[in-house]
C-alpha cells in the first residue's frame, strides 16, 4: 500500500478566550484527498479549530503543518493569505458588491481565467449565472458559488464551517451529495465542521467527535457509531438512551435481561454501568403481561419511533415497523436483536 502524503498535521493545539478553553490540546492529521468531519454540538470549539488552522486566530500553543511546512508554532505565524487553503463559511461570505464571476475569480491569480471560470461553473452547475449578484441567487446556488470561489485558488486544503446549516432540509441532501462529488473529483483534502451526525457520516472518511474543546474520538464513521469510546461520543453519534446494568463476564445484566457486551473485560464483574442503546437494538412484542409500556408514538413518515417505559421508569426509544397497531398505554416486552452487541460506560 502506498503511504499517502500528509496535507495537514496539528499537534497539541490550544486556544482560550477570556479564560474559557475553546480548543484544548487538539492533535490531528489529514491526508491527500481525505475528508475529515468534525462533529460536535454548538460551542464545542469546532469553528475555533478551523479558524486556528486557517490562521484567522492565533493559538496559545501548538504546532500546525500544512503540506509538511510549518505554518504555526511558538516562533512562526504564517498569515492566512500565505497558507494556500480555502474556507467555505457558514454564511458563505460572498462579496455582495461583486458578480458571481467576480466572486469566483477573486482569489484566482493565474492568467487562464476563462478556462478556470468555465470549468468551475460546469463543476458547480452554475452555468448562465455568472453575471448575477449574490442576492439574486438561491441559498443552494450561493453555497455552490462559495465552493467554486474556494476551488478557484486550487488550495491544498478546504475548510468548511457548517456549509449546509443555512439550507432548508429538502435542499441539504442534494447539496451534500454535490459537495461530496465535487470534493472527490477535485481530489482536495477537506475538513468539514458540522453538528449534524448524518452529514458528518455520509461525507467523511473519518470523523472527529469534539466536546468542550477536546477531540474525544477520531475514527471512521461506522466505528464512531458502533464503537464509541465515551458516553458523549455515543450520544453525538446517534440517538442513544442509557439503562443501568451490572457486568458479569461477557454480558451485562439489565432489567431487559442479559445483553451481550461489545468489549468484554473492560470492567470487572459486578461493576454498575450505563448501557447505551440505539432505537434499532430492541424488538417490540405485544403481551398482556408485558413488563414495559408504550407511552408515546412519533411518526416521522419514514419510520415509527415509540417511547417505551421500563419497569425502572427509564424510557427507551425503539423503532418499529411502519404499519403497526401499537398505541400509547399498551403493555409490551422488549427483546434484544440477535446480532446486537452493547457498549457500556461508567455512569
Amino acid at each position, binding site marked *: 500500500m502506498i503511504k499517502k502524503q500528509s496535507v495537514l498535521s496539528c499537534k497539541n493545539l490550544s486556544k482560550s478566550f*477570556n479564560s474559557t478553553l475553546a480548543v484544548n490540546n487538539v492533535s490531528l492529521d489529514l491526508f491527500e484527498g481525505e475528508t475529515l468531519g468534525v462533529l460536535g454540538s454548538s460551542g464545542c470549539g469546532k469553528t475555533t479549530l478551523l479558524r486556528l488552522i*486557517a490562521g484567522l486566530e492565533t493559538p496559545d500553543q501548538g504546532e500546525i503543518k500544512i503540506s509538511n511546512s510549518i505554518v504555526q508554532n511558538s516562533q512562526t505565524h504564517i498569515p*492566512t493569505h*500565505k497558507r494556500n487553503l480555502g*474556507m467555505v463559511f457558514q454564511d458563505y*461570505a460572498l462579496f455582495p458588491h461583486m458578480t458571481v464571476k467576480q466572486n469566483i475569480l477573486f*482569489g484566482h491569480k493565474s492568467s487562464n481565467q476563462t478556462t478556470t471560470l468555465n470549468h468551475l461553473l460546469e463543476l458547480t452547475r452554475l452555468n448562465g449565472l455568472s453575471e448575477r449578484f449574490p442576492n439574486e441567487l438561491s441559498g443552494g446556488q450561493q453555497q455552490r458559488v462559495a465552493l467554486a470561489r474556494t476551488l478557484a485558488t486550487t488550495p491544498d486544503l478546504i475548510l468548511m464551517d457548517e456549509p449546509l446549516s443555512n439550507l432548508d432540509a429538502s435542499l441539504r441532501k442534494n447539496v451534500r451529495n454535490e459537495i461530496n462529488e465535487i470534493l472527490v473529483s477535485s481530489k482536495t483534502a477537506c475538513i468539514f465542521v458540522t453538528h449534524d451526525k448524518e452529514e458528518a457520516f455520509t461525507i467523511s472518511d473519518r470523523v472527529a467527535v469534539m466536546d468542550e474543546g477536546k477531540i474525544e474520538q477520531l475514527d471512521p464513521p461506522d466505528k464512531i457509531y458502533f464503537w464509541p469510546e465515551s458516553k458523549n461520543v455515543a450520544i453525538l453519534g446517534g440517538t442513544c438512551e442509557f439503562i443501568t446494568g451490572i457486568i458479569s463476564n461477557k454480558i451485562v445484566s439489565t432489567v431487559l435481561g442479559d445483553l451481550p457486551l461489545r468489549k468484554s473485560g473492560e470492567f470487572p464483574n459486578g461493576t454498575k454501568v450505563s448501557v447505551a442503546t440505539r432505537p434499532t437494538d430492541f424488538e417490540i412484542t405485544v403481551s398482556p403481561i408485558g413488563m414495559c409500556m408504550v407511552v408515546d408514538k412519533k411518526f416521522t413518515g419514514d419510520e415509527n419511533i415509540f417511547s417505551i417505559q421500563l419497569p425502572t421508569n427509564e424510557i427507551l426509544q425503539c423503532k418499529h415497523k411502519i404499519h403497526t397497531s401499537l398505541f400509547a398505554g399498551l403493555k409490551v416486552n422488549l427483546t434484544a436483536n440477535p446480532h446486537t452487541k452493547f457498549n457500556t460506560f461508567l455512569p
Partner: protein
Amino acid sequence: MKNNTPYWVLIPSIILTIVIIAPLVYLIFKSVNADSNIWEWIFRWQTLLIVIRTLTLVATVSIISLIIALPLSILTTKTDLPFKFFFTILHALPLVIPSYVGAYLFMTAFSPKGLFYKFISNYFEINSIPNLYGFWGAVIVLSLLNFPYLFLTLRASLIRIDPEIEESAKLLGLNDFSIIYKIIIPQLKPAIFSGILLISLYTLSDFGAVSLLRFKTFTWAIFLEYETGGSHSAAILSVGLFIIAMKLIIFESLLNRNFRYHAIKSVGQKTPLILKLKKLKIPAVLLCLIVFSFSLLVPISVLSFWLIRGIYYGEIVSVDYLPIFNSVYISMLTTVTVILFAIPLSFLAIRHKSILGQALERLSFIGFALPTISVSLGLVYIGARIGSPIYQSTFMLITGCLILCLPVALGPIKSRLLQINPNLEDAGKTLGYSNLMSTFRITIPILRPGLIMSSSLVFFVTMKELPAVLFLSPLNFPTLSTRIWSYTSEAFFAKAAVPSLILIFCSSIIFAIFLYKSKLDFS
C-alpha cells in the same frame, strides 16, 4: 481577546484622541490657573443669569421643536397624508439655512420698524410692532431652523417600527388614534430623547443667532470675553459650557437606558401600516403648509426682497468670489481629513473591541459634547502658545472643523460597517489577500454609500460653520459665513443677501445628495 489591531487603525485613532482632548485639557488648565479675582468676577450675579438664560433657551427651543416635529413625523410616515414625499423634503430643508442667516432675516423682517411693520402699516394704524429681539427672537429662529433634526430622528425611528406590532394592536381592537397614543408614541420615546438631546446641543452651542439677536447666552458671553482680552474668564466659561453639554448627554443616556427593550427589528420588505386621516386630511395639510411657510417660505422671501432691493439700488452687482472659494476649499479639505480619520476610528469601534480601542472610542465621544466655541477657543490658545506656523493657519482651522464634524461623520460609516459581515474579510484572507488588501478590496467598496453620506454631511456642516471660522481662520480669510455675519452685525442687510443665497444654494445641493443617498431613511 484579539489584540492585533492594525497600525492604520490604531495610529490615526490615537492622534485623533489627542487632538480632541487637547483643547479641553488646555482650557481646564487655564481655568485652574486663573487669578482669584477672575474667579470672584465669575461668581457674580451676571454669570448665574447667563446660565439661566442659556438653559431657558435650550428648554424652550426643545419643547417647541418637539411640538412641531412630532405630529409632522407621524403624519409623513404613518398616515395617508397627500404629498408625503414632498412634505418630508420640505420639512428637512430648513437645515440648509444657517442660524445666523435665519437671525439676520428675522431681524430685518420683524424689528419694530422692519419689513413686516412697513407691510402691515399700509393697512393698519400702528406705530410699531413689539420688539422680538432677544429671547423670543432666538427661540423662534432656533426652533424653526432646528426642528428638522428632531423630525428626521423621529422619522428614522418611525420607519423602523415593526408594522406587525401595529397590526396586532389593530386586531386587539384599538382604533387608529389609540394606536398612535398607546403603540407608536411609547416606542418613539428613545428617539424623542435622543432627538431632543441633539437639538439641545445645537441650541447650547449656537453662536450665530444669539449673537446677532443680542441674547447673552454662554457662547456670546465667551465671545465677548475673548474679544475684550479676558482669556482666563473665556476659558472658565467654556469649561462651564462643556460641563452643561456633558450633563445633557449623561442625562439622555440615563433616560434612554430604561428603553433598551424597545429594540426595533429591521423591517425589510413589510408594508407599513397606514392610518386613514379622513376628515383630518385638510387640517393636516394646513399644518404642514404653515410650518413650511414660516420655516422656509418667509426666510427665502425676505432674502429675495433684500436681493432685489440691493440690485435695484445698485448696491451689489458683482459677486465676490473669494469667500465662495475659501468656503468650498475649507469644506473640501475638512471632508477629506474627517473621512480619513473616521474610517480608522469606526474600524476601531466596531471591528477591534480591544480595551485600548474601547477607551479611545469613549474618549473620542467627548467631541460630541464639545461646543464649537469651546473647541475653537482651546485651539486658539494652544495655537497662540505654539505660535507660527500653527497659529492662524489653515491647518488649525481644519483641526477645529475635524473635531466638530467627527461625531457627524461617524454615524453613517459606523452603521454601514455594522452591517458588513466580518467573515467577508476573513474570506478575502483565505483567498490569498493580506489583511490590508482584504480591507481595501472588500470592506471599503461596500462601505462607499456610508462614506458618501458622511462626506456630504461634513461638507454641509463645514460650509455653515461660523464660530470655528471666526476664531481659527487665518488673517484676511473671508468665508461665506463670516461675510454674512459681519455684514449683518454692521447692518449692511442688502449686502448680506448675496452670500446668504449662495451659501443656501450650495448647502441645498450637498444636502440633496445626502437625502438621495439616505433614501429618506435617515438612519
